[in-house]
């Protein structure tokens, strides 16, 4: 998967993680979402990210897959993540 070049991960003024799109804040990310985005930006596949979420946050496999899949769907809907051609 490829992340959009228009999107940039930043720490907001209150220390909260944000996804800026075209230079403007668009999403506020919780810890797990921030982690998933950083993995996506590092070119990890969805399966790899699920495994890392399980390992890092102690989530169950099902919960981690659901969270990762849902978040990636939202990002795809907003054209912030694409399947590699």
């Amino acid at each position, binding site marked *: 998967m490829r992340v*959009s*070049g*228009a*999107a940039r991960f930043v720490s907001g*003024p209150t220390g909260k993680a944000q996804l800026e*799109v*075209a230079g*403007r804040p668009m999403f506020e990310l919780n810890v797990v979402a921030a982690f998933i985005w950083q993995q996506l930006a590092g070119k990890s596949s969805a399966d790899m990210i699920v495994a890392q979420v399980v390992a890092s946050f102690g989530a169950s496999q099902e919960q981690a897959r659901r969270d990762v899949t849902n978040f990636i769907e939202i990002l795809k809907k907003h*054209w*912030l993540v*694409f399947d590699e051609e």
Partner: protein
Amino acid sequence: MKALYIPVFLRNPELRPNQSHPSTVLGAKVFGWTALCALLTYGTYDKYLVPGFTDRQRNELIADGLAPDSADRLAPIPAGNKWPTDDSDQLVLATMGPELRTLAAIRHRLQFDGAPLCGFIHSINSSRMAFNILQQYFAGLREYDLLLCSSRAGMRTIETYLESIDQLLPPNVRYRARRVLVPLGVSIPTVDHKDRLVLRQRLALGPDHTIALYFGRLSQMSKADLGPLLLALSVLSRRGTVLHLVIAGDDTQMNEAPRLTALAAELRCLTNLTVWVNPSASDKHLLYSGADIFVSPSDNIQETFGLSVAEALAYGLPAVVSDWDGYRDLVTDGETGFLVRSLFPPDMGRLRLSDCTSSIGEEDLLAQSTTIDFPALCEKLEKLVRDPALRKTMGRAGRGFASDRLSWRVIVSRYEELWQESTQMAKIDYRRGIVGSPIFSFSLENSFGHFASEKRRSESECFITEEGREWLKRPDRFYFLCPVNGRLSPQHFADLLGTIAERSGITVGMVVDLVCSNGVRTSVDEVHWTLARLFKYGLVMSPERHRQARA
């Protein structure tokens, strides 16, 4: 839902004198700040909307003294046309000054036809005010809009401006906004009687020393010539009447303090005088709490209301003031203080208010030659110095008047009453199909159409470029073309560019028709704008460029 729109971000001007480069504390600014605080404290509206309001500004307001709960009632309006209100909401657009014209333009642009506007007059002696009123004739004001006048005299001046303007305009062009008398509000303070002692200690005076306070901007050009007051102090001193005068206020404009102290020295009353320049908010509280008498011999047409007089009444001080415009509404002669007769010079008729700097000179001449009855000023001050019981009675009456008629709780309630009334009037006008006065605006095409080489025509054909095809593969790039208010998404750009890619050579007019007839909720203006952005970024090109590219 009821919402109030306030277009400017206001700060507490009375905190500014502590800075290294102080700005002048003007009554209008003090009103703006205190009115904002009062609306957020006593107002019953659901939302108070401020354009571009940020967390940083919220913190600045709290640092200026606004309660955090009040600050939380302010809500930002995002840039652009998207407002957090619905058609069914009751919206009032208010400004703390007289600038109804700007508010009317906002109302017109955003099609909030039923939203009343509300403005306030402050100093009205400037030609800018008269011309501001003239411009408001062409601003699209309605009968349900409000221009609130703080004093009867101020209201009368506005009426004379309107009469003069009416004589120059055709009969069908009339000033539409309602003029309603509403005094400026004040906070009713808690007075700690220990402050009386603290102030005397600060001034190295005995505990029973009588103090008269003048509080206001120190400017003989635009507030009051305090020279006669010093002379009165000197006369009383020679008569054996013991009085200490404190002259306190903003002195950032004229640097009056040296003149006043030199005059007091010459009149041999300097030991009975303290000139307290640029007092802080806590100094101000101490001065009003600790003084016995308030005195203000205003002689200047800049003074429309008399905020410091209202504050003095709220602190329970009997007031010896000139019989002058707004002061007359505030002080009842013999009950809450004394009004001292004022006289204009006989040649006043030759002076004009004009739109040039020499006009200020004429106003200054008028103030310099306006007399506040000097023997009466001495007599009334002396009477109060010698009669503590009378001071007490008058002070109590003044505080009662301020509490009943001028307190912010009362004034905010009056504003809301008027806004409700105006909203009802707007509904009636809407039902009857009554329209407002014409809006004078300038066509950008008429005024600036000749700036560019030419205008793209509706018949111009559109072709997608190689760059455009590349962007269709990377549609996230369209985020960079989106407007700041987020009304249009990247999808709009992608759809439009896709349409052009499928129909090479389609005209601008056809693109607009096609997109708008697709059931997509996009306006003609938005399609034109989106298409223009695609041209601007080289994603779509005209036939000439298309031919060149093919060649």
